[in-house]
């Protein structure tokens, strides 16, 4: 298969994975909060690592991020990012109205964010599991609040161990109000192999 067609097919496949995953995650979030959650069409980027970082976050905004390692039949990592208003809106919905400082969230508040995101990540993976008939396990969540670029760097470095280019499926979700977030899925090497074998696509390129 020509390399260009191959890349196109791979992108398409990843887009579908992202679609199913985010759909499933948005459904759970909608149930949890009792609100309508809208999702965008997933954006699949395959490009050199230095380009990707500035494409995803050109102005390096502040974000609260939850990081999950993915293990099981396929590897990779998931990162869920919220902007300031989204963090406050989520905490308000779960923990009630309080005065909060984003740079100094309490252990309890971080735990709330971790729990919501855990549900999101699990449903995201469940969607992909169902589609591919594979077993995917997320790690415990880890929270950090900082600029977006250093936050996504770890996931990119980990990918850099097995790929020459960076691959990410990013999807925006929102409640059409204060809650805006982004799910980033960074597939690992096994993921690529698994997807191709599951969908019976012969791999000629590495």
């Amino acid at each position, binding site marked *: 298969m020509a390399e260009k067609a191959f890349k196109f097919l791979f992108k398409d496949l990843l887009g579908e994975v992202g679609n199913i995953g985010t759909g499933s995650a948005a459904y759970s979030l909608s149930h949890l909060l009792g609100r309508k959650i809208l999702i965008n069409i997933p954006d699949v980027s395959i490009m050199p690592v230095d380009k990707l970082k500035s494409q995803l976050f050109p102005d390096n905004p502040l974000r609260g991020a939850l990081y999950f390692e993915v293990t099981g039949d396929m590897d990779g990592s998931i990162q869920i990012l919220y902007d300031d208003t989204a963090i406050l809106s989520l905490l308000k919905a779960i923990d009630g109205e309080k005065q909060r400082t984003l740079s100094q969230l309490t252990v309890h508040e971080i735990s709330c964010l971790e729990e919501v995101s855990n549900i999101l990540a699990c449903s995201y993976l469940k969607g992909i599991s169902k589609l591919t008939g594979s077993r995917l396990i997320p790690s415990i969540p880890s929270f950090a609040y*900082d600029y977006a670029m*250093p936050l996504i760097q*770890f996931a990119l470095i980990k990918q*850099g*161990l097995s790929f020459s280019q960076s691959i990410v499926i990013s999807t925006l979700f929102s409640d059409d109000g204060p809650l805006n977030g982004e799910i980033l899925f960074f597939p690992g090497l096994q993921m690529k192999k698994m997807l191709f074998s599951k969908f019976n696509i012969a791999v000629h390129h590495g």
Partner: protein
Amino acid sequence: MAEKITLGMSELSFTNGTATLGIIGLGSCVGLVLYHNQGTVCAMAHIMLPNSREGLPRDANPGRFADTAIAYMVRKFAQEGIKAKDLAAKMAGGASMFKKIEKGKLNIGQRNIAAIRKALKAYNIPVVAEDIGRDYGRTIEFDASSKQLQVKSYRYGMSVI
């Protein structure tokens, strides 16, 4: 105002003092500056991984790995007639943004720093200043004429090392 060169992940850049070198948003990566003690020639690398033997591709930018970046920089300085003994280093970065996950073998930040120290030691290049580790992102800028490295972070504001 001097020209500004901003480096992306795994990039490496040289200047003879007419430009400042900078990196936006260092997490586990390390920004390493090597500079000539007596002159204004300096170089910066945005190092991603500790060792060229454990990453792909092998023919990647030399700035991608600590070992290849330092070897490349020292060689380039030598081509300009600057010996390794006249070089000094400053570095920043190598954080663990997600403390629960980035431990042990996955603590890439610490491993990057260890690999850089080891490679610099092989050339006897001293690290004169550093702002490394912990759990926050950094944005850095190096001015070749004053040889000062400015480190900015969300949590601690600006400092100069």
